[in-house]
């Protein structure tokens, strides 16, 4: 079954016809040429395909494109404003938050979404549920970013980068 859908990707409306079987990740990469989200495991276990979908961080490999007609998507490519990197992007550079870079677009989108969640007071598994405000300790950052794996092991730099971006 084919369906015509519109995805608003990094500020641009993109029309595309997809088979119902197409994941959002494959629609972005294979059909629209948006290469920022990466295909790591393709089974929801690594987080490298993370984007912001209607302002929330999600993985795109276990999502059907046809179910998200009209969605607003921001990838790591769409975070910068003109020539100014997003503060999270700059922080990853400042703190060596990557080595090979393959997981980085997912890490960065995840961090941007995570900072919004923390600002909204969402708890994590290591939070005090009674606390109204979230203080992003290294333990909080590690737990909240646990959906993004980095096989180079750049975690120390990633945590430091996010601490900087959170300030």
């Amino acid at each position, binding site marked *: *079954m084919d*369906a015509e859908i519109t995805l608003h990707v990094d500020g641009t409306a993109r029309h595309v016809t997809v*088979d*119902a*079987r197409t*994941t959002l990740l494959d629609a972005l990469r294979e059909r629209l040429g948006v290469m920022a989200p990466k295909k790591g495991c*393709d*089974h*929801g276990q690594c*987080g490298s395909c*993370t984007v912001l*979908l209607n302002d*929330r*961080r*999600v*993985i795109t490999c*276990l*999502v*059907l494109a*046809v*179910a998200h007609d009209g969605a607003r998507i921001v990838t790591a490519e769409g975070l910068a404003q003109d020539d100014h990197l997003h503060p999270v992007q700059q922080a990853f550079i400042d703190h060596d938050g990557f080595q090979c870079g393959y997981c980085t677009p997912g890490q960065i989108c*995840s961090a941007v*979404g*995570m900072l919004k*969640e923390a600002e*909204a*007071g*969402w*708890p*994590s*598994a290591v*939070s005090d*549920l*009674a606390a109204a405000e979230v203080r992003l300790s290294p333990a909080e950052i*590690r*737990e*909240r970013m*646990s*959906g*993004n794996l980095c096989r180079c092991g750049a975690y120390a730099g990633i945590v430091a980068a996010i601490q900087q971006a959170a300030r």
Partner: protein
Amino acid sequence: MNPFEYQRAEDVATAVATVSGNENAAFLGGGTNLVDHLKLGVATPNLLVDVSGLPLDRVESLPDGGLRIGAAVRNSDAAADPRIRRDYPMLAEALLSGASAQVRNLATMGGNLLQRTRCVYFQDVTTPCNKRVPGSGCSALRGYHRYHAILGASEHCVAVHPSDLAVALVALDAVVQVSGPDGDRAVPVTDLYRLPGDAPERDTVLERGELITAIDLPVLPMAARSGYRKVRDRASYAFALVSVAAAVDLFDNGTIRDVRIAFGGVAHKPWRAYRAEDALRGRPTTAEAFDDAANAELRDARPLRDNVFKLRMARGALVAALQHLTGADR
């Protein structure tokens, strides 16, 4: 992946009629388990009816003071809900211990309850599995089974249910509201899941076309003192080897008035530990009493070759959870 049609459900009644009338149709929620099964060939529907956009996305107070969580509420929204955090902390903790933030932002409450086992053989279509292909045999029985059941299993299936949410719900005596081709019904979560017996292909008592529309939480003041403890191979983003949901109510003299306990990771269903509860009522909050409770519940456990460790792990998790809730660890 097999080809399929996709439909966005207009309302509950139409969705139920569509799926109950087509044995190759399936409901689609957040997709985080089903889409994986489509890729793996574990599920081969010819029609997906997307119920994630139905207006079942609110958390509402019930007239009796309980809480109704719509089936399409995302796991992350439920975990952040101030009423759930305050009145049912074990539920928020269970949700937050599951998957990753990116998955919780997609996964629905109804879908979480109906996710399938992560048994590696169930997910691998090249191997025998009675849950996937009835009668083909159980590869886990003598294979890789350290994640598998120690309670209530059968020779046909030793898989465990993977949901953390469901463990908290059985401890809380929650009830799911279900719409089906023959009308609506309410099913206590303790009755929703089955033991495998000789029909492990059926995870729940739901009939074809029945759709969970909401989860009702009863008024349970003791749940304000409750928690969820999950033991796994890494600190986060992994399924449970063993988990415990527990709530405790104490008399003024510090002995136990009432208690709710459920285990995850030990059986084909979230395991309500009635024997442990019975063993604790009227007892002091001592390590000895907690240990007796664990003994009472695990008396009939039948571990497999490579998961004997779950006995000690379940005992330890229960004692630690109760010590934490009663302040005995401070």
